[in-house]
């Protein structure tokens, strides 16, 4: 079943928020979903789900060879399992075998209908590991030039790694100076699947530790994410990533 890396190039564009909500939205459509917090140096998914991380059961422990697949997967919402990253600085000091990420997502893909990989920003070894552990890439950006540059780089790396690009998710849209959707599509050469409005409720949901699709299902952000889920499902079907 498809393993989708959610990537951005530029940090701070809302990739983790999109990942957690997309996981819940896909589960809402009846699919079983596994979410892996592969942002090795900036893991935040446990905060987004309001879950306290138990050391010894994190992605870092798995990558350090100290835990098995079964040790690190936990159910966090109806239909959603997650592998959280450690938030301890010590965990980063451990020698991590990033290649093990591919083994983990392959294991998860045998047991779930969708595997989402919340990928690190930048273009270091960890993003390559995230792409190697995926079948397709979803690019998140904000509608500004720096983010467009990050999206272009992400697209190039994804293509170099032989990964399909599902499309663009424009986060924090709705400001006067936003680059319009058609211009973004022309600049990056990929379709915008959905635009997510910039509203304070997103920050509130992060503070509350509950994805918006769960806590405010009728909100414009949740509707946008559900629309994204439908498009992801359809894209995966058209790319023959699902049976």
């Amino acid at each position, binding site marked *: 079943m498809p393993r989708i890396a959610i990537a951005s190039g*530029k940090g701070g564009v809302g990739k983790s928020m999109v990942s957690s909500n997309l996981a819940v939205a896909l589960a809402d459509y009846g699919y079983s979903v596994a979410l892996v917090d592969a942002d090795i140096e900036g893991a935040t998914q446990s905060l987004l789900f309001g879950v306290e991380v138990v050391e010894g059961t994190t992605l870092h422990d798995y990558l350090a060879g100290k835990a098995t697949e079964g040790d690190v997967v936990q159910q966090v919402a109806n239909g959603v399992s997650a592998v959280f990253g450690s938030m301890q600085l010590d965990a980063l000091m451990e020698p991590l075998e990033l290649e093990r990420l591919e083994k983990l997502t392959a294991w998860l893909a045998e047991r779930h209908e969708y595997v989402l990989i919340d990928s690190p920003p930048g273009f270091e070894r960890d993003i390559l590991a995230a792409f190697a552990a995926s079948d397709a890439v979803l690019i998140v950006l904000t509608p*500004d*030039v*720096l*983010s*467009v*540059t990050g999206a*272009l*780089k992400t*697209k*190039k790396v994804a*293509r170099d790694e032989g990964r399909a690009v599902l499309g663009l998710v424009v986060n924090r849209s709705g400001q*006067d*100076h936003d*680059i*319009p959707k*058609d*211009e973004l599509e*022309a*600049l990056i*050469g990929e379709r915008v699947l959905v635009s997510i409005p910039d509203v304070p409720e997103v920050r509130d949901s992060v503070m509350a530790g509950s994805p918006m699709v769960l806590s405010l299902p009728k909100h414009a952000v949740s509707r946008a994410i559900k629309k994204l889920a439908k498009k992801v499902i359809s894209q995966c079907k058209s790319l023959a990533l699902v049976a």
Partner: protein
Amino acid sequence: MVVDDEEDILSLMREILTREGHTVITASGGREALEKLKHVKPDLILLDIMMPEMSGYQVCKMIKQNEDTKGITVAMLTVKSEEEDKIRALDASSADWYFTKPIDVAKFVRSVRWLLENPPRRG
């Protein structure tokens, strides 16, 4: 300001943009453009990438490194359309925008109007 070493392109751009009510200055190369920028400050520079002597990348970098000109919006105008070219233009040369030739005139005119009304912000 339109910077291109091809006279045909300069004429075409001048015609399209003048018809839209814009005042157009042209330069047939990087050196001429940089010289003209000492005296005029256009709202937008449309800059070809493949030019003799100085590439558009180099010209753009010099514009963006100069305190007097770094605030001017620079859009690359080129036949190059690979991701690497776009990344190089937007990242290494700090350009603000990217148009690929051949242009769709109606769309190009809309984009130029939008760029003039909304100078791109970086992050």
